[in-house]
């Protein structure tokens, strides 16, 4: 990468970290006009910004606002790079996410969706207040690497415990189940009958990356 392009990429990374959507989009346009490939923008711009944000967000210091703003900027440039008639390519794997029936607090799920999308996963969102059956139907259709469940309320725990069993009954026992969110992260994976409890969205991302690398 030549120096002017390198400088523009640095500006893009900082704009994403600052959550500055309009500057991020204008930098994308400059990079494209300079002949930089989309793949390079993603790997040297978006993924670098996400890695830096990841490093900042420890379990002790994690706030949604900063991630939301970065995520919004990422989504803004994704729209610029891939207009509605062009599917967003994914280089890693598919993940199905949901907030289960009885819980409508879906901010955590939306954050996870943004972090995974910006990290080159294809995310299928089953929405909030989602019955287990619909989640499992979607998993059967999409055959994801992981099903991710976010929950703020303890009352959804009995439903969370049903997910892996229902996947297994349809021959989908190989799909990993990850849970997170204020209520669910108080529990253990064993207690919830899931494969992993993510402490935050980046923790979930690390788990997925480990699976991709054959680490789990």
């Amino acid at each position, binding site marked *: 990468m030549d120096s002017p392009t390198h400088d523009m990429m640095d500006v893009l990374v900082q704009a994403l970290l600052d*959550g500055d959507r309009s500057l991020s989009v204008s930098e994308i346009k400059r990079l494209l006009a300079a002949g930089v490939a989309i793949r390079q923008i993603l790997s040297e711009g978006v993924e670098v910004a996400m890695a830096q944000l990841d490093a900042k967000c420890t379990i*002790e*210091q*994690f*706030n*949604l*606002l*900063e991630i*939301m*703003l970065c995520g*919004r900027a990422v989504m803004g440039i994704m729209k610029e790079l891939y207009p509605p008639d062009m599917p967003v390519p994914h280089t890693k794997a598919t993940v199905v996410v949901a907030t289960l029936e*009885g819980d*409508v607090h879906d*901010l955590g799920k*939306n954050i996870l969706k943004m972090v995974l999308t910006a990290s080159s996963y294809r995310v299928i969102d089953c929405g909030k207040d989602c019955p287990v059956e619909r989640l499992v139907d979607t998993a059967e259709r999409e055959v994801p690497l992981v099903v991710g469940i976010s929950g703020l*309320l*303890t*009352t959804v*725990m009995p439903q969370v415990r049903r997910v892996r069993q229902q996947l297994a009954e349809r021959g989908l026992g190989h799909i990993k189940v990850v849970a997170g969110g*204020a*209520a669910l992260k*108080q*529990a253990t994976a064993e*207690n919830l009958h899931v494969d992993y409890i993510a402490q935050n969205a980046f923790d979930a991302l690390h788990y997925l990356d480990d699976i991709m690398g054959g680490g789990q």
Partner: protein
Amino acid sequence: MNSLERVAATLSFRTPDRVPVMAQVFGHAATLAEVKLGDYVRDGALLARCQIHALEYYGYDAVFALMDVGVETEALGSTLTYRDNQYPFVQSYVLAGGVNLDDLDVPDPRRAGRMPEILKAASILRQEVGQDVPVVGCVMGPMTLATQMLGIERALYLAIDQPERFAHLLDFAAEVAIRFGLAQLEAGAHLPIVFDPSSSPDVIPPAFYREFALPRLTRVFAAFKQAGSMVNWIHTAGMAAPILPFYPQAGVELANIDFSVDPQQAMQTLPHTCLDGNIKTLAFVEATPAEIAAESSRLLKIFASRGGFILSSGCEIPPESKPDNIAAMVLATRQPG
């Protein structure tokens, strides 16, 4: 000492006859009385009856005139969905559907939505317990109400994109909290607790809290104190340690700490502020009475020399909690050591 005297002594760092226990039993009171949660949150008289039943059953030190976090936003025009055995949730946010903030009035608690039912509950509870047990009302903190009027994602984006408009929204939300809280005091509550989960550092950075939330909370608590509120009590969920230093400035006198806050650290940060907490809420559903007793005992020992401590959960005790677990927490305060 009766419960009110016990809590008052603790708040002023005097030695009570035993450590008070203020179990955050809200919807669980309906479960205990075999009443549908959907009915409990719409009927102030029923709520009061269930709270008194739970007080008599457990023998703890406070009752709550508190329905759910949607009371204020519903009174302002948001639409809620009710279900039999869940808390209601917002179906459509009042400010997300084209309504302008300038078109809204601060709701009259005697008429708007379920606010009159809360006032009825506070009044009945006060008649029942008099000056024996604290009657605790509840208002949403300005930050939390703002997120309940607009949806949390929209509200946070507004804060960044149009901070002046967001500040205006927070000022309005503070007025709602003040008017509703004062009405609760007038109806008989000894205090309104301020619920402010959206101000948690899990959601917003401490600098954002200092700039946006703190000035409005300060105003709300000053108004409550001036009106004779027994104590300024705040609940902020999650890892609140980074914002604890702001509490004295806000006028907080009693701080509920969640399980993810280290009690020792909280004591160091707030040496002159009474603390309550911080048993993990899920433990009341999943753990055993012996585990709850052990955790209670651990907390009582941590605070034994300092005082200024009320045993409680770190957040709401879930409706589906096991009664034996709540009873174990209460019993722990009667069996010191």
